[in-house]
């Protein structure tokens, strides 16, 4: 795999939050057309990684680089990253009372495209996507995430992703808190978008979503590093055995190297 031509490259990434290092040298390369899953127990650094990649101001990249389409995005504002084709589906999306989903989506699409979107085109697109994700029409007029149920929020995240059509999408625990129907719908949304040009990084605690979204590569995150990588079978192993054995092996190896 040629790193230079890759869609998304994370190289020796270190991230600190309020002076505490959480991500401690993470490497990952995602080619166009690939779906990667990062799995990890609580407090392994999953959300920190997602926030840092999107450019949250409180998540400081202290070392390493992140390349999107061959260019570094470190130091760029979140909106600049988005305009370059990066997307983050949030685990806990924020409510913005008074701002309707439809206005928000249109502003976002205009920003990402860099030009106005014809009303008719936008409407058609929105309608089709909402049908696909099985959300009610009234959804568009509701305020962003305001009073949304957990499931509605996650659908709204996937709706945004589908409208914005990012080249590289990161999904941060999009499966958490979903019942099986909602999970299936959300997965369909992701699969509908997947093609040989896009990359996906699916961050999750559980293997469940990976029954519906088939990853090409699975990585296990622990203590801010990827401690093991493999194919889809790795997810099943984890499901069966839990994280303990892997973590144990990792700790032992660390002990040896020290």
């Amino acid at each position, binding site marked *: 795999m040629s790193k230079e031509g890759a869609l998304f490259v994370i190289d020796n990434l270190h991230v600190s939050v309020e002076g505490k290092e959480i991500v401690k040298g993470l490497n990952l390369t995602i080619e166009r057309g690939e779906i990667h899953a990062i799995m990890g127990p609580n407090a392994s650094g999953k959300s920190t990684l997602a926030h840092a990649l*999107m*450019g*949250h*101001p*409180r998540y400081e990249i202290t070392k390493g680089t992140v390349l999107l389409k061959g260019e570094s995005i470190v130091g760029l*504002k*979140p*909106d600049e*990253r*988005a*305009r370059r084709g990066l*997307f*983050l589906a*949030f685990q806990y*999306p*924020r409510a*913005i*009372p*008074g*701002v309707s989903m439809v*206005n*928000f989506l249109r*502003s*976002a699409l205009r*920003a*990402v495209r860099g030009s106005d979107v014809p009303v008719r085109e936008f409407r058609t697109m929105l309608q089709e996507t909402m049908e696909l994700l099985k959300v009610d029409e009234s959804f568009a007029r509701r*305020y*962003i995430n305001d009073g949304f149920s957990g499931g509605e929020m996650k659908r709204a995240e996937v709706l*945004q992703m589908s409208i*914005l059509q990012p080249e590289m999408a990161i999904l941060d625990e999009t499966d958490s808190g979903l019942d099986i129907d909602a999970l299936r719908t959300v997965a369909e949304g992701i699969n509908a978008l997947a093609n040989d040009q896009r990359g996906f990084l699916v961050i999750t605690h559980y293997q469940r979503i990976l029954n519906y979204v088939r990853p090409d590569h699975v990585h296990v995150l622990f203590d801010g590093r990827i401690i093991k990588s493999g194919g889809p079978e790795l997810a099943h192993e984890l499901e069966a055995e839990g994280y303990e054995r892997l973590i144990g092996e990792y700790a032992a190896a660390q002990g040896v190297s020290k």
Partner: protein
Amino acid sequence: MTDRKAADIVSDGYKWGFHDEARPLFRTEKGLSRKVVEEIAGIKEEPQWMRDFRLRSLEIFEKKPMPGWGPDLSSINLDEMYYFARASDRAERDWKDVPDYIRRTFDRLGIPEAERKFLAGVGAQYDSEVVYHNIREELSKVGVIFVDMDTAVREYPDLVRQYMGTLVPPADNKFSALNSAVWSGGSFIYVPEGVRVDVPLQAYFRINAENIGQFERTLIIAEPGSFVHYIEGCTAPIYTTNSLHAAVVEVIVKKGARVRYSTVQNWSNNVYNLVTKRSIAYEDAVVEWVDGNLGSRTTMKYPAIVLREPGAHGEVLSLSFAGQGQHQDTGAKAIHLAPHTTSVITAKSVSKDNGRASYRGLVKVIRGAKGVRSSVRCDALLLDEGSRSDTYPTMEIDEQEATISHEATVSKVGEEQLFYLQSRGIAEQEATKMIVNGFVEPVVKELPMEYAVELNRLIELQLEGAVG
């Protein structure tokens, strides 16, 4: 189109602060005295009762101390002001007869278009006089009176005498006394029994002469079963010395009638905006105050509703925006004097660049007013660290059987909200605008579309720091 015009104005570096060269045809001498008050009454050829009302009010004004609470008013210099100016000789009926320089000012505000599109009549106050007042014929046919207050004193003296000063007597506070002594202009509206006025009535006020305070007086009488929506919009030019706006508004809403009074004002940042607004609601009547306060140096305004008879309902929906050097001290009063009366107060404020917004309110329920329900909700949004918001709610509840709620929130435009919007490609400034516009949406959506658009535009200008 209004929009295009506004865009041009903005690109000119417009700050709602231009002023045409003001050419008052006449003004009284600087400062306030018996002589000045008599001169005002004389120029207007007022009847003796109005002259007496003014002089009595002047005496009260001289005895009353400045308010001992609330914002700092110490730099108001009452001796340095002019209390009356006349820009044009007579009230004009036809737009084409309005003097050119005045018309230019209104053109720049987009008024003619506004009028054509929406308005039943325009009472636009220029300096201290109404120069343009157009009443649609249908209104007068059904007996609705919509004239400037000076005309009302001449043509409908009995109505004016019967109601003026009944809700806000001169002795109510220092500035109501001042207004009563030197008032000029304002609107008079009378809606006969059972008449519903479907189009909003609108007046546009504007201060345009240095040091001229504006003391308009508005009186609305809604007879049983009637309805009217009155809108006042104000923008003002910027001057270097302090200006004072001290208005009095009285709204009488009789059995089963409903009055909505909407205000969008954007005084320039040197104006002290001290307004007494009060309404009385009789049996099953409804009063609604929708109040958007941008601009001004200091605003003190607490629209009050006296719920006089059973079944009366009152609502106050207010929005304040406090930018650099500004103190918006606004709120509402609901005074429940009868059983089964209800009130809802929603106050929203946005503070930025060390601006200060305060909510000051009163809910009063007298003993025996059983089954009263009142809810107050104050939401403050702070855009930066130095900005400030305070809440001063007063509750005087002397009846056990009353349901009263008060809720206050203060929030900052959160890092997380901004990050969320930015992660969708929206740049920080636009993201901030979206959050603020969303915050004020509950107030904005209550305004007619044109005003909603203008209010949003004013807020955007404020956010960009383009408003002086």
